[in-house]
């Protein structure tokens, strides 16, 4: 009797899970696996399931992730709200633990070994931070427009960020900045997004173009602004603040770069922003990546037919640079389709978040969207030479157990919350 009801309930549940989001996730996983297989494929290596190779291992990764997804869907939706801080605390403990005894992978610490299984603590921390932040902003009486609450919210984000940065995992650390979008949605001023972006643009421009053109542009904006807003005292104040702080920043960056940094630091920054070509290091990787993608042309060379990506000219082919294989084998049509698929998924998550009745659910949904978005933007930006090589995976596509598991968990917790949402 009970079990019959349970089954009915579960079948309702399946109907309520957002079909579009699930479909896109499955397509991404399958497409990712095809590309991983392609990087392993060669004339004398055609086995589809070989558990010593990454294509075989990825099948295990996907299976484990799907098992976890099913468990999440069977749990009570209210559980996640309750255990948010606990998950966050566990993640912080894991991060600190890896800091002490973590395994070094590609110059970054952060792996925990469980028998034969490795877990990247930073991935768990992204989930933990998304949950804890959602829990915090949804608590009764909390308002991020209040200074004190805002500081606590920032602390929730910065704690894991700093530990991850300390582990030398710059890529993952940057991803934590994504949570600003959650706070923005819950009432934080847009300036928290605009100012960092402006600072980044100005600093980068100074490094790339030198101090003079930047000062000229700032002065130009000041002059034009003055002519337009002559009458509005408020706008003139804003303008003055902008011109003064932008000039200070310009001068500061220029001075710091030329007089404080040492030669090798300057060289590394120049390589990072693409001003100098690092012949066989990071710059070489980006160039190889662009050659691979560019050689795909309009329609690509076809499944398993890529040559540039076969001989490992591009390192970390199946993780950080998986997009090269897509570009080479499926051309513009395939890469554009992948980009659009991602945009659709992110758009869909925003829609799902907005239809939630509880603040926790919505904030959590924004957290998921933000993390996925940053991963998407940085990973593909890196392959396209638009972003420094910091090494983070493309969710659901790249090879790797930890990222597959944590992104799937993140996604299916949202889908479970959403499915339960329509019950109320």
């Amino acid at each position, binding site marked *: 009797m009970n079990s019959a009801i349970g089954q009915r309930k579960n079948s309702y549940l399946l109907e309520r899970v957002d079909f579009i989001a699930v479909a896109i996730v499955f397509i991404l996983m399958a497409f990712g696996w095809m590309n991983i297989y392609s990087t392993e494929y060669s004339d004398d*290596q055609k086995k589809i399931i070989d558990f010593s190779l990454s294509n075989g291992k990825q099948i295990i990764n996907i299976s484990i992730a799907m098992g976890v997804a099913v468990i999440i869907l069977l749990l009570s939706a209210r559980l996640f709200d309750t255990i948010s801080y606990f998950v966050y605390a566990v993640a912080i403990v894991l991060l600190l633990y890896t800091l002490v005894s973590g395994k070094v992978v590609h110059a970054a610490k952060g792996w925990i070994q469980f028998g034969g299984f490795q877990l990247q603590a930073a991935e768990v921390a992204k989930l933990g931070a998304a949950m804890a932040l959602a829990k915090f902003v949804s608590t009764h009486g909390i308002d991020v427009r209040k200074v004190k609450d805002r500081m606590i919210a920032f602390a929730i984000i910065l704690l894991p960020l700093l530990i991850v940065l300390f582990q030398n995992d710059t890529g993952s650390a940057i991803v934590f900045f994504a949570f600003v979008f959650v706070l*923005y949605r819950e009432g934080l001023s847009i300036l928290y997004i605009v100012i960092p972006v402006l600072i980044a643009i100005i600093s980068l421009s100074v490094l790339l173009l030198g101090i003079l053109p930047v000062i000229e542009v700032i002065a130009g904006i000041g002059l034009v602004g003055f002519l337009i807003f002559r009458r509005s005292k408020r706008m003139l104040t804003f303008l003055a603040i902008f011109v003064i702080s932008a000039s200070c920043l310009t001068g500061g960056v220029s001075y710091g770069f030329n007089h404080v940094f040492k030669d090798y630091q300057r060289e590394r920054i120049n390589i990072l922003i693409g001003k100098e070509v690092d012949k*066989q290091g990071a710059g*070489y990787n980006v160039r190889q990546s662009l050659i691979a993608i*560019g*050689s795909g042309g309009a329609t690509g060379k076809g499944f398993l037919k890529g040559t540039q990506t076969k001989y490992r000219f591009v390192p970390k082919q199946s993780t950080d640079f998986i997009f090269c294989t897509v570009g080479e084998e499926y051309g513009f049509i395939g890469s554009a389709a992948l980009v659009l698929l991602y945009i659709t998924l992110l758009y869909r998550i925003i829609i799902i978040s907005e239809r939630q009745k509880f603040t926790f659910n919505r904030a959590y949904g*924004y957290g998921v969207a933000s993390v996925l978005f940053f991963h998407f933007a940085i990973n593909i930006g890196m392959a396209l030479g638009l972003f420094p090589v910091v090494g983070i995976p493309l969710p659901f596509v790249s090879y790797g157990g930890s990222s597959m598991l944590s992104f799937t968990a993140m996604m299916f917790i949202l889908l479970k919350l959403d499915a339960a949402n329509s019950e109320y």
Partner: protein
Amino acid sequence: MNENGNRTRVVQGIIILVGFFFLVRLLYIQLIDKDYRQFASDNSLRKETIFPPRGLILDRNGVLLAGNETIYDVMVIPAKVKDLDTNAICKLLDVDKTDFEDAYDKADYYSKYKPSPIVREITPEQYGRFEERLFEFRGFFVQARTMRYYPLDVAPHAIGYLGEVTDNDIDTSDYYKMGDYIGASGLEKSYEKVLRGKKGGRLILVDALNREQGRYMDGKGDIPAEPGASLNTGLDLKLQQYGEKLMRGKKGSIICIDPQTGEILAMVSMPDYDPNVLLGRDRSHNYGKLILDPDKPLFNRAISARYPPGSTLKTVEALLALQQHVITKTTTYTCTGGYHLSAAHTIHCHADGTFNAREAIKMSCNTYYCNVFRTFIDQRRFGNAAEGLDNWKEGLSSFGLGTKLGIDIPNEARGLVPNAKFYNHYYGVGGWKSSNVISLGIGQAEISLTPLQLANQAAIMANRGYYITPHFVRSISTKEKTITLNWPKKYINIDSTYFNYVVDAMEDVVEHGTASLSKVPGMPICGKTGTAENPHGKDHAIFIGFAPKYKPKIAVVVIIENAGFGAEWAAPVATLMMEKYIKDSISRPNWEKWILDATYLHKKPAVDSTSIKYKGVDE
């Protein structure tokens, strides 16, 4: 609500904007810019490593001790191998088929995509034949590299040898790749980062048939290799060779130091080996034989072996006792053939009479120094013997005895100067007195020191109170510049008047004391003999000393294992070395013959080095 709707739209807008950027960028690199697409898909790149020549090692006059020769390795990229005719390639390269297959499996296991060496060091003729038929062997190519070469078969322990990098080396550094060589001992190891230079790389376009099509981007992306820097050592080739000749057929070591600079002029450890047997294809085979040899030819006795210092310690003890006013220059003790510890136990002495400290060094009187040692340990200002012993140890440490001096080759032993804790452990706290440890006073029992420490002690005596860390390398030269190394100088906190007193005593030792048979006419030598009892057979013969007495040029230690008295065996060798270095001639050919004829190791060396022939040499 409206405000929230705006916020949603801003977030969505940012996402779409980024997606749009990506699409435009893709459109550009995949459809518009022809640069990337023209990169024909038939061609692929091969990344070749350019190996820098390893830095040279030179003696103090610029004579080459370690150089390089060019050799060729056949490399394989397993992922690119196609339709391989194993029999043909083995025949062409004259290698055993199973060896080849083993090497191939190893390379395949290391990486399918990175080049690994598969047949090493082929001859230039093989190289020529193979290069002609390279198109038959897809996935293979030949890489030139330089190989180490030791032209003189000299000072193997100081120079060291190379080994192939281990998995651990590859994991812990991003410089080494499988098949690279790395310094594994001696100067080759300690100056690895200086000597190795910096690998370069070139990118070569190859077509589907493994034929070179030219340089990628006309070689613009190539990085030239930076040759390793050369080491200018203080070794004196002639002296080193002479030392090796004298020690042939014996076990032991010689170290000669220029006391004014701390430079090591010669370091001999016998038995030794020809460093060239540890190069090339037979390396691991020969290494196995050497490591199993019971005479331990790979072991550098000069810095790693530990011996009781015997009577050579008396010089240091006299200085410590004088400085702490335990004795004065005129304090005498009477020796009646031994130091009577108890009715049953006497430490014997071959001297008889009443001596002061100077005479007791000259005659090497055990009784005198047993008295000095006990008086030192039992000084009233110390609460107990434990405190006294620790103070004594501290004094020895200031001479570098029982400490690592910091010589610039690896595996330096610390030796052992026991402290109070050591005996507390043995007898229990408060369970021992100066009488229990009296043998330390004559450099016997638990104390053990390395030849290097004793050589440094001789240098301190020569300098009357200071030393410069003993070292091989005086400067490092690259093509552009020479950097002189600055080695630390350390002072011993003892008045120079006491040093002068003990140096006079050491002169007496050679002029008319225990080592008077080794006197060299016209060359004032200061020294001290030692005879170290040991459980392994006859006593070890020891001599430390320096010459000339004023403005010394050379400080020497000689240890010959199980040879007998220091005066009989070690002193002649040491004084011959001094004479050779200072006068470049030998005035006592009968002594030289006596030493050369005295051999007790009669077996053939584990590895016969005469079978090795050298190919073309280039530096």
